[in-house]
């Protein structure tokens, strides 16, 4: 329709519209292709734009060099302002305490400060940068606590509580709220060597990973867990058929009108599939069956056949026996 009107009312190309109309610039509009199609054309374009690209890269490089030279090498005053940020529970007081351990304070090199901060197991990684005005920017990433361990103090004092990270490291858990610590499952019946951040618990790497998976993927189950016993966890020989993790269920989290589930036994070699199995099990239905006459049960999630290295996933409710 529009073309129809254009045809009648628009300018006629065959009609002579004056000298400007027949100028070659009007008659042959130029359509300069910015990227010529041939190889030669592309080479020309690259060559002509290369100085711009190189200049841009030069300035980028200059900026990076300047940034790092200011960032890491410029010594500043001992009491330079501090900007602190963390994703956990540590506070600026902690950082100041770490900085105060060295006489140079904030004037130290950022790499040294970072190393000091990362020396604490609670700190997963530390980003330390110095701004052009000399102030320090500190960003901490803290380790997640998935469990706690209670240790006797070396000189017979009160119990020392340490938190367990998914990597199997223990840390002091500074500034952690008491309630948060209390809600964490406790590691029981473990064998350990060392103390403090050098504390080494047998099988803690397995249990750390196991608890992290439970916490992130099955939080409803994880909440009910009061403790994890490592009495049958053989640590480095985690794949041994009889190696297992005993999860003790928190008392008072279950209804009283049915037998209680006291413990769940996971094999250390196949706990992932067993966790998946647990999430699909109708535990309520099983425990409310008329055949369930014992007052309390232990849920064994796999048959630990000693002749085969591979546990067979077959959950069984076993009545609790007095040891």
């Amino acid at each position, binding site marked *: 329709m529009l073309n129809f009107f254009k045809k009648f009312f628009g300018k006629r190309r065959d009609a*002579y519209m*004056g*000298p400007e109309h*027949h*100028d*070659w610039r009007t*008659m*042959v509009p*130029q*359509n*300069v*292709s*910015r*990227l*010529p*199609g*041939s190889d*030669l*054309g592309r*080479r*020309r*374009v690259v*060559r*002509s734009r290369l*100085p*711009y690209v190189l*200049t841009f890269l030069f300035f980028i490089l200059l900026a990076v060099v300047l940034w790092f030279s200011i960032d890491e090498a410029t010594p500043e005053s001992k009491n330079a302002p501090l900007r602190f940020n963390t994703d956990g529970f540590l506070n600026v007081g902690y950082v100041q305490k770490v900085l105060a351990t060295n006489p140079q304070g904030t004037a130290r090199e950022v790499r040294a400060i970072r190393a000091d901060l990362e020396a604490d197991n609670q700190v997963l990684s530390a980003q330390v940068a110095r701004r052009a005005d000399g102030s320090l920017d500190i960003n901490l990433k803290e380790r997640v606590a998935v469990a706690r361990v209670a240790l006797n103090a070396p000189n017979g004092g009160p119990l020392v509580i340490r938190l367990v990270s998914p990597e199997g490291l223990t840390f002091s858990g500074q500034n952690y709220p008491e309630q948060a610590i209390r809600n964490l499952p406790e590691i029981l019946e473990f064998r350990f060597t060392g103390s403090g951040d050098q504390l080494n618990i047998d099988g803690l790497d397995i249990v750390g990973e196991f608890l992290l998976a439970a916490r992130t993927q099955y939080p409803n189950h994880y909440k009910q867990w009061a403790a994890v016993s490592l009495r049958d966890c053989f640590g480095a020989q985690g794949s041994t058929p009889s190696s297992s993790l005993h999860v003790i269920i928190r008392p008072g989290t279950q209804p009283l009108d049915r037998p209680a589930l006291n413990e769940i036994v996971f094999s250390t070699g196949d706990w992932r599939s067993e966790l998946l199995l647990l999430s699909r099990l109708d535990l309520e239905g099983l425990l409310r069956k008329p055949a369930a006459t014992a007052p309390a049960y232990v849920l064994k999630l796999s048959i630990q056949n000693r002749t085969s290295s591979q546990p067979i996933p077959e959950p069984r409710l076993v009545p609790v026996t007095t040891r």
Partner: protein
Amino acid sequence: MTPKPLPSIITVIDIGTHKTTSLAGQVVNGQARMIGFSERPTDGVVKGMVTDLEKLQLCVHEVVNDVERTMGRAVDEVYLSLSGPDAEGERVHGYTSVPAHDGKITNKDLKEAIENAKCKEPPSGCVSILYMRQPTMVDGKPVGNPVGMTGQKIEVNFWRVTMKHTGLAMRVGMINSMGIKVHDFVLASHAAACAVVTDADKKGGVLVIDIGAGTTNWILYFKEHILCAGAISVGGEHITNDLSIALRISRETAEDLKVRFGSGVHRDTDANQTIWKDGDRGVGDQQFNRGTITQVTALRFQETLNFIKRDVMERVNAIFKAQNVELDQNFLPSGIIITGGTANLQDATEGVEKVFGLSARVGTPKFENESFRKPQYAGVVGLMTAAIADAPAPKRAPKGFLPWLKSLFRF
């Protein structure tokens, strides 16, 4: 302190039948300083007509690439030469009556007359490319600048160059596909004249003949202005071809013999000379009679000049109509100037003088670089001269951080 003017970069491309040349110059104080040059044999053009656009495009692209590499920066826009019979020329005439009571001519009157001249419709399917100024007349008398003079009628004349729309679109499209804009066209004969003709020559009247390989372009200046221009599809290649047929030799050998022994005039004494193709008189070397070579070259050369003479006379007579104009010393006191590769032919000027009966000389372009002071480069050097005359005034250097940075990195 006023900022220094920025040097303008002008790039010109002369696409001939035999060779394509490009010249890039930096304009400093109205003079071009050469910063890039390239010359490659043309492919895809026969007798000034494009026969294979892809081949021609590749050839021109390589020339542009060479120039860019030489000068170290990209070519954005170029001036192109227009040669051959494709570019038609005609005289357009416009006039207006002076409306003032006292008969004083104003700028407005002149503009009106110019508009009137340019209003003439070009031939069907053609596009106006250039309007070259011819003498302005006030009441029938030629004047330089009519503004401020008194009279009743003001007349302006232009030599208009037109071209077929398809041919022009093909040329523009070819350059555009390389990422380059065509700034303007320059008539090849006018370009050659710009390189070799002085103002005194123009004032007296001069005919410039640019004899290329495939085409011959000519332009006639009369009383400081261009009177007419034209072109024929005959050039130096025809001489080579004739020689090749007459002596039954390859075109390469014929070209070599033409350059070394060809002449614009045949003399009886030439028949006494025997020449050798290679000169070592070894196996495969051939001997020829020089008289045969000069006879063939002179005949074709003079025939070409006769075609030119006829074309010039036709156009001159069309302009002067009733007046019986002859191409003689009175009409063209500055004689004839020949340029182009064929002007290198021995005794070419004598041949021209024989045909036209006028004094002739070979035009060598005025250029800073001595290697370009040859008649075959008159076209490209003149193209640059014409482009400088047409180019806008150089811009003042802008102040600020970014221009300073650009100048630092010579963008």
